[in-house]
């Protein structure tokens, strides 16, 4: 029998061994994401193509109404590609946010019957969204070919950083909402509304410059920095604003730490109150 000692005590707060534990449970994390992907398009006709249709149709509708009819400025690039870059990141963020917030509730049956580090659940739902993001980039590549844009090297290098910011921002906010959701199901009703409101304060359908001298307030929203930088990097709409990325990073870290703190604080009681 190999030595492996567990001590069960009244509630403890965060310790670094928790991170190691999540690493130990990486296979479970993989299986949860795998399950969600498998199940998502079961019994559908076009299956995984939905992951392409959704952002594509949204892009077309937005281009017609906001680009053609409302003539919303797009920093000098064609509106479809302008809005698509925003949508791609936005859908990754909003999808992850809503999935992480509901991850504990949808897996209630498992949470009350078996032990595993609860953080595995929200993280795995973001991983699932990552796959949709990757599928969605296929269209972006197509659009870039069509409109003749080639990203410069530094642009490509910064993309992973932008993805990490999006990942952490949605996990941070999602963890906070998930831990409230366990006790107060109000979150389920507030969330779609909240996400819709967020869409309007994030420069997805309009350029960031539109807010004028108040744009620094919008910068506290990490997604603003992400989307603006993504456009700068891929389409050369503006010069990369490192200061903005810095603000986004700082806001994201604050959000993540706050989210993890709230989650950890309530985690051990999930099974009792869910």
């Amino acid at each position, binding site marked *: 029998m190999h*030595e492996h000692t567990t001590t069960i005590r*009244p509630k403890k707060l965060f310790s670094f061994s928790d991170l190691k534990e999540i690493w130990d449970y990486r296979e479970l994390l993989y299986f949860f994401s795998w399950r969600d992907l498998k199940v998502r398009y079961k019994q559908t006709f076009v299956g995984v193509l939905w992951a392409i249709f959704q952002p594509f149709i949204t892009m077309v509708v937005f281009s017609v109404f906001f680009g053609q009819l409302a003539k919303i400025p797009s920093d000098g690039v064609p509106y479809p590609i302008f809005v698509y870059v925003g949508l791609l990141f936005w859908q990754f963020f909003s999808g992850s946010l809503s999935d992480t917030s509901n991850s504990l509730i949808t897996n209630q049956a498992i949470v009350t*019957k078996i032990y595993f580090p609860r953080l595995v659940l929200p993280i795995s739902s973001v991983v699932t969204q990552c796959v949709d993001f990757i599928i969605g980039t296929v269209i972006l590549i197509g659009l870039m070919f069509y409109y003749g844009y080639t990203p410069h090297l530094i642009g490509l290098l910064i993309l992973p950083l932008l993805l990490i910011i999006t990942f952490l921002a949605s996990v941070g906010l999602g963890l906070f909402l998930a831990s409230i959701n366990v006790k107060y199901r109000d979150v389920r009703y507030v969330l779609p509304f909240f996400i819709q409101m967020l869409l309007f304060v994030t420069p997805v359908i309009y350029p960031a410059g539109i807010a004028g001298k108040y744009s620094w307030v919008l910068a506290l929203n990490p997604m603003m920095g992400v989307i603006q930088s993504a456009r700068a990097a891929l389409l050369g709409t503006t010069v990369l604003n490192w200061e903005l990325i810095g603000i986004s990073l700082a806001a994201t870290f604050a959000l993540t730490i706050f989210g993890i703190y709230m989650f950890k604080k309530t985690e051990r*009681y999930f099974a009792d109150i869910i």
Partner: protein
Amino acid sequence: MKPAIEVKKLSKKYTISHQKNGGYITLRDSITNFFRFNRKKAITKEQFWALKDINFKVNPGEVLGVIGHNGAGKSTLLKILSQITPPSHGEITIHGSVGSLLEVGTGFHPELTGRENIFLNGAILGMKKKEIIKKFDEIVAFAGIEKFLDTPVKRYSSGMYVRLAFSVAAHMEPDILIIDEVLAVGDIEFQKKCLGKMDEITKKDGRTIVFVSHNMGAVMQLCNRVILLEKGTVVMDGEPQAVIQYYVKSLQTAKSDSISFDALDRKGKGNIQLSGVTFTDEKNAIVANGTSGQQLNVVLNYSSKKTKAMPYPYRIGVAFYDMYGQALFNCSTEVASTDKSDIDLDGTITCVIPQLPLSQGDYSLTFFLEVDGEIEDWVQGALTLPVINGDFFKTGKVSPEGWEGRAVLVPHYWILH
């Protein structure tokens, strides 16, 4: 030798919130409650100790049974041992890897195929992917579902589902296994197979098991030590035979007065209502349980706000169900009584069952009352009646194993020569 599990001064407190209008507590309730200045709070709180100062040790290779009434703290103990919920005080030290099985098929997804669910469920139970691949064929063979491996489990029969779920669980290899009442599922053949498999695991591999069950037969067969919980404390700890006997005796002697129906969900017009029931034996002494083959009197009390008598024609009855909701038999004045006079509403109505034809186990009782063809009161699943083994067949032997809680005993005899 280090104990596999060491439980020290373990306590668990639950705070129960009572809300005046019942149901969930919403964010609004919490906020308004916070801003309420007077003492009359909408949410009142009550503390309840599910476990109080529990101490015990389990040595490696020991198979410990945990028994007790409903609400004695068995499930809470298992939940703390499996780290699903933290204790309020005290601590548990566990040496070795732990696998817990509070339910078979945790995390099974109906849309996924049998093959996919084996991997998913295995991972949830803490098995490594390599391990699952290694044991895959064995798991499939044990469950006997070779033909349906690539069918979504939502198309499985409930028997197949349970067999597959148990089969995955049975192939976990932790040093310490924590098991809740999971054997109360599946057909009897499969239950036997599971018991056999668990027996094999413990005897051959020397695994430590903590096993909670209402099935005294299974506890007797598997465990080499049993603890009895009552109201959150350990009241007895020792040899299975002795502890089980003590427990069964306590079931027999526990006196309980009339069990009230007032708080129960019911259907019917409600002009006349059943208000409660008392169980007595052939000497009219109150009992808390039935005994196979012994007389059981079901004494019903009733009341009415409107009338003073119950006019004929009426139909009064009590139906017996097993804990899986299967109807077993039903006693009714309609067929068993020839009395056609009205009944005054100041007495009791008694149904006498001369030889209770039920094997050991728990049964659910439903009561009904009908006057003039209309339902006045119908209390479904009003209470759970425990039945203990008795000499039904007058042979000194009890109902065969595996039939606990699910069999109607029929008087019969054999002519063999």
